[in-house]
């Protein structure tokens, strides 16, 4: 059976290619039909903030890549409740349908996956 992989994205979206490159790992794995999960935590939750306008920085929007996750088979999307609250985001208004997990649930989540990559 294929090994499951959890990708933890901790990078804010517009500070270089890091957030996009973390997403690319997920999209590449999805194309191979691997069991993948993606967790947004720390500044990574800013990737899910609504109404962002990266065009003002002449940057390509991440939204298309984020929206593509379910289409690439990456259906398990999670967000860290602590990180969301700490950054004043409303979990109900995030740009993707995600499961909001507290610290104990996050520990259990990481435990369930065969492999974890934190970027």
């Amino acid at each position, binding site marked *: 059976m294929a*090994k499951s*992989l959890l990708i933890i994205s901790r990078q804010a979206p517009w500070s270089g*290619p890091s957030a996009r*490159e973390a997403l*690319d*790992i997920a999209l*590449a*794995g999805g*194309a*191979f039909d691997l069991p993948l999960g993606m967790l947004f935590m720390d500044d990574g939750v800013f990737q899910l903030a609504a109404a962002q306008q990266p065009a003002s920085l002449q940057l390509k929007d991440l939204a298309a890549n984020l929206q593509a996750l379910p289409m690439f088979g990456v259906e398990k999307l999670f967000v860290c409740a602590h990180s969301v609250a700490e950054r004043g985001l409303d979990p109900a208004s995030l740009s993707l349908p995600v499961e909001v997990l507290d610290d104990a649930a996050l520990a259990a989540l990481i435990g369930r996956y065969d492999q974890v990559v934190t970027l």
Partner: protein
Amino acid sequence: MKFAIAVFSPAHAPSSRRALRFAEAALAGGHQIARLFFYQDGVHSASANVVTPQDELDVAAQWRAFIEGNQLDAVVCIAAALRRGVLDATEANRYQRPAVNLPAPWELSGLGQLHEAAQVADRLVCFGGD
């Protein structure tokens, strides 16, 4: 046991050297390395154009020697490499760039190679940051 080792930092970062020492210890311990994969700024660890002052450790050269000496599969992510100017002859020609800085033993390929290595390995170990 089989390791997949992913490097996310350039040769001048401590974590690139740490990855190399880990890889050496894995082989010395009788383990195998399914693949080395270089992603994000890790593609700079593969650059043949790194010039290290003579009295400092040349980690890029050590990577090259380690890979050649042990005939390891060392893949550099093509998308991350192009973005950072790490090109083999084919890509330099394709994009009409003046320099080639990724000769053998390195191989440019896609992120699928990271996933494939992670699937066949017993452990995926990533190195990056400070």
